[in-house]
């Protein structure tokens, strides 16, 4: 519960931070002019509306894992793309490509996911 409350607080603060640029709910949070790709281990998959969130541990050269949040569609849209908690589970290694957050936080809006078997799925 504490974690959820903290995440909500972080999200609200980020909205305050980007509100001057808010002309579209997607473009206000994310830089839709470029994409980033991260690879790491799934730690949690929030299969919820209005947006799902994949949580990942991403380790860079410093060997310090960074927790990334990968924002995506709500459950119905993900079911149609075949991305459900049955196939995407904690412990799996995946890559996610998407629009990075505008404020540099480890947050992106998912475009393409590379599944543990190497299959690429376009989500958005």
């Amino acid at each position, binding site marked *: 519960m504490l974690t*959820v409350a903290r995440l*909500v607080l972080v999200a609200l603060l980020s909205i305050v931070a*980007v*509100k001057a640029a808010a*002309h*579209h709910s997607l473009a206000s949070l994310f830089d839709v002019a470029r994409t980033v790709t991260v690879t790491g281990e799934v730690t949690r998959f929030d299969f919820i*509306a*209005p947006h799902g969130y994949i949580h990942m541990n991403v380790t860079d050269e410093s060997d310090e894992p960074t927790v990334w949040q990968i924002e995506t569609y709500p459950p119905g*849209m993900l079911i149609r793309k075949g991305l459900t908690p049955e196939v995407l589970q904690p412990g799996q290694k995946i890559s996610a490509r998407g629009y990075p957050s505008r404020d540099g936080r480890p947050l992106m809006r998912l475009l393409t996911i590379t599944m543990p078997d190497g299959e690429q799925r376009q989500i958005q």
Partner: protein
Amino acid sequence: MSRARSRHHGRRVVVTLSLSAWLSLVAAIPSVAPAADPPTDFSGVWLATSPRSAGGANRPEPTSRARADLEAHDPLDDPVIRCVMPGFPRSGLIIYPFEIVQTDKMLVILYEAFGMVRRIYMDGRELPDYLPPARSGYSVGHWEGDELVINTTHVAPGLLTGGGLRQYGDVVALERFRLRDDGQVLEAEVTITAPETFSGPWVRSFTWELDPDGMIYESVCDPADSRF
């Protein structure tokens, strides 16, 4: 319920039934012609195929009032953050699917996003002048050939776009739905008139494809999980 009230209630039921039975006998004398079948069957699950750019295409210049509100827009004030349904016509046109259930008197559009429901009255009624403003308005429809024409009014004031463009309760949305590609594609031209927001009408085009085996999933949002 007390026994006395229960007895009283029972008497009212008997009187009501007798009256309705009498009325149905009277109504049966000149036989009422059955309603014609709808010329087009729109029923089914429809998946949005419009590009995201369709959302903002053709948008007219906002009025000075709408422009001022747009510039002052605070995303924290967006009711969606509190999981309040964005309503129509802000929502329902791109990205998320819907299911149409159709009878000769009514067409119901069941949207996946936020569980929005729109009832389109097809029985020729006129909406009363006063209705409590609703997030998705109130709608009546009619046929023009094979085309379904829906007129929506009484939309509660609020955001017209997620980006902060507002409407002030004067929205009229005129939708023209038609099928093409042997019934596999649904297309609509949606004309939004909102004089307080725009200098002219906002004419928009959208498409959907039929998902013959598809279904609509629950998509209910908990404010505790809402992260915009």
